[in-house]
């Protein structure tokens, strides 16, 4: 494989990865190729890539777990404004997944998909795990041993609940009027709001555009 392609692959992988990658991990990218680049070659490529960051807005840093691209600290005050203006929002798919985990725990991803009728993206599960609202509490002893998800104490804390019992039951939910007094739920328009989210929920971008029209 030619050197340019190796360099392109390594740059792209480091830029697309969610976390730092070490040399071993980078070498694995080539495992299906006839010729795996040598460790030294990869190191040399990284060095070149680092040099090429000279004067740019990002740098290729070495951290404990490997190498990663990150924004330069001198530009970070501006970059951070991307998130300061508007906190991101969750999609309805995520909220539905969360609600199923809360109400139907322990539950597997497959079971969630079955009820929802559509696939659940790994991203959603990952976000919920990172937020520490759900966790893997076991594995179901069926083929594939899928993880079983349940809600956490952090979930209860965030929503100021002492226990899940404080959530309205399904029967209560189906009869909205009954729910109102207890939960102080707003009018059914909430549903509309949630639906609107589905439409505009690429977060900030949709909204900034809206302001221009």
């Amino acid at each position: 494989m030619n050197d340019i392609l190796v360099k392109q692959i390594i740059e792209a992988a480091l830029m697309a990865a969610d976390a730092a990658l070490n040399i071993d991990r980078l070498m694995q990218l080539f495992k299906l190729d006839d010729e795996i680049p040598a460790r030294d070659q990869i190191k040399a490529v990284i060095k070149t890539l680092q040099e090429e960051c000279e004067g740019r807005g990002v740098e290729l840093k070495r951290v404990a777990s490997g190498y990663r691209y990150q924004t330069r600290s001198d530009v970070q005050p501006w970059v951070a404004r991307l998130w300061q203006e508007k906190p991101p929002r969750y999609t309805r798919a995520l909220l539905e997944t969360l609600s199923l985990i809360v109400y139907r725990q322990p539950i597997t991803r497959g079971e969630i998909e079955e009820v929802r009728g559509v696939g659940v993206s790994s991203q959603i599960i990952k976000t919920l795990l990172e937020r520490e609202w759900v966790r893997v509490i076991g594995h179901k002893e069926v083929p594939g041993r899928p993880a079983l998800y349940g809600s956490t104490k952090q979930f209860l804390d965030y929503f100021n609940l002492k226990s899940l019992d404080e959530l309205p039951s399904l029967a209560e939910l189906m009869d909205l009027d009954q729910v109102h007094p207890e939960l102080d739920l707003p009018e059914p328009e909430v549903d509309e709001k949630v639906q609107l989210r589905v439409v505009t929920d690429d977060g900030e971008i949709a909204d900034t555009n809206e302001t221009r029209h």
Partner: protein
Amino acid sequence: MMLNRQLGYHIGKESLVTEIDLNSQESPQTELPFAVVKGEPMTVPPQDLYIPPDALEIFLDAFEGPFDLLLYLIKRQNLDILTLPIFKITQQYMEYVELMKEMRLELAAEYLVMAAMLAEIKSRMLLPRPVEEDDEDDPRSELMRRLQEYEMFKKAAEDINELPRMYRDTFEVSVIQAEYEYEYERPQPNVDLKDVVFAFREIMQRAQMFASHHISREPLSMRERMSRILGMLNVEDFVEFNQFFDANEGSSGVIVTFLALLELIKGHVVELVQSEPFAPIYVKPAVKGPIEDEVL
């Protein structure tokens, strides 16, 4: 419009494909075999009319409806839609439909509607037409127009499938943000409990016909208890049965715990072990060996 049966047929098919999408390592779906017959994958529709009986249903599944099947019949013989050989096609189409009926397949209503349409066109073609009549009354016109239109979008769908697509052909770059003096933390989305509760209500309304009444009456406390039991088993592999019960919770607490344990055993999530009669009963995760972390 659409029969319920047809709807069921589609839902079943769609969820099947979702399943494949999630787990399969296959290359694009166009290369998926139509069927596996006697161990041999069939990657192209059979060239003659004979379809092995066990493949017929899947064969039918390979078509997106009567237009698709008709197009296939036309293309297979290098015929042109514009000179739609209605007799030949009708004959072949009917042979398929008859075959499907013989197999007692739940034939989608659309296929029968098309059969009727073809039969009607055929009979009108047989009627003598006045010489001065122009093409407008060609009985085939409407069918030809719709076939063309369908073919156009069939092609458009293939084109869209070819477009470079996120995660299949490209990934977005997302580099880490440097820490800087203000120690800025990316804000997490705020969620209102109402949104979670309403999301659940909505799924349940949608999925009501699938929900078992038994499950919907389950008290949430039992679900929570199931999680708590599994949490204890995460820390320790073997926990003595008695340890799950807390007398301070009163009889209802004990019952909830007991039901939760039964539910977990039923779901093959935990197992009970007892070395000999009257020895302590232990609860352990049903999974043997180390639990692999979910790959995300």
